[in-house]
């Protein structure tokens, strides 16, 4: 076994992890304005404007239509696919009054009670979800 020789090999391995999007440059570029929009919700005055008219607020940002729709739908898996990063997106769900557990559970296909029960029982086991190719 040899390690990655350059950034291509290094990054290539990330696609082999099930149900996980690593926030690489490619994602950071795709999601640039999406994440900057989310970041803007750290300011109380922006949160007020956003809550008053979400669509109008989104239209101030050079985001794709897909990104805007996914934000309005709070479809976090889709937002990850479109370049969102969870720490940036957290400003959106915090503004909604959701906790990390509530928001994160929406990405897993479980409801929040099932998700909480899994966490209380020790969390999701890494068994079988470490690698797609080698399924271990």
């Amino acid at each position, binding site marked *: 076994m040899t*390690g990655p020789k350059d*950034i291509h090999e*290094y990054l290539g391995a990330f696609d082999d*992890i099930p149900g996980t999007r690593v926030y690489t440059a490619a994602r950071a570029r795709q999601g640039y304005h999406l*994440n900057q929009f989310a*970041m803007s919700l750290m300011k109380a005055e922006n949160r007020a404007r956003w809550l008053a008219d979400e669509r109008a607020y989104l239209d101030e940002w050079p985001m794709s239509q897909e990104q805007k729709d996914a934000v309005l739908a709070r479809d976090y898996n889709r937002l990850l696919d479109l370049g969102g990063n969870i720490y940036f997106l957290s400003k959106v769900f915090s503004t909604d009054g959701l906790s990390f557990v509530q928001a*994160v559970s929406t990405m897993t296909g479980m409801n929040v009670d099932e998700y909480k029960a899994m966490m209380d029982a020790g969390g999701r*086991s*890494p068994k079988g979800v470490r690698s797609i190719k080698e399924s271990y």
Partner: protein
Amino acid sequence: MARITAGIASSHVPLLGVAADTGKDRDAYFDPIFAGYDWTREWIAKPENKPDVVILVYNDHASAFDMKIIPTFAIGCGERYKPADEGWGPRQVPDVEGHPDLAWHIAQSLVLDEFDMTIINEMDVDHGLTVPLTMMYGAPEAWPAKVIPLAVNVVTYPPPSGNRCWALGEAIARAVQSYGEDLKVHVWGTGGMSHQLQGQRAGLINAEWDNMFLDGMVGDTQALRFIPHIEYLRETGSEGIEMVMWLIMRGALGRETKALHRHYHVPCSNTAIGHIVLEPVDGTVPPSPTLEGNNGAAQAAI
């Protein structure tokens, strides 16, 4: 002469701040977590253990830094830092007082030592920095130690390698040792342990791996410094990578450490809580291979 007297590692889950700030820290859910810090709170209150300055290694979670600027290693040289508004108003905790004199000394030493530091004079600090203060000190009127924030990029890939983090710790130790004033300095590494906050695999916890990592912090092994990023990702979830920040603390403690206290609990929100208090047994770090002008070739060329 300033001395590194201890290293502390701790998770920094934002929910712990919420629990402490709303008086829920001893309810059924949170008590098993906070109880694991009781030992440390008592220990750190004793005059012989109390640090004058904490070098607090943490990561900013899209609070002080947005996508416009992403420093790999940023050291706070300012007078003070306010808690950040992370989307639900700033935490009602004391401002964090800096130690500009020691911070600048370390920053300058690290650049001479060929670490490409970003110097920060003004920023707000988020839960990554304030939650560990709460865990160690509770809710005092003012934080009992001055703090030098050391922010590490672990959000946009690639973060620094484990080896680079460990080496940064070693360089911090050299810098602290060359500071004239007699100060007790702690280095804290925060974040982790296993957690994944995104995607269908969210909620991943790997208690076995986490405990292997806790084991690796103790003694004279340096195995942890060579773990590649992909292993953190596969084994500990996408946010487990925060543990590279613990290696800066570990590197700063030198050749050999002893564990004074250890605590592990699952879950807190989506995360495995890990906490360890370490003391240097042999604080020796390698000499700088790189200090400006401090080598034969440099001198021969002059």
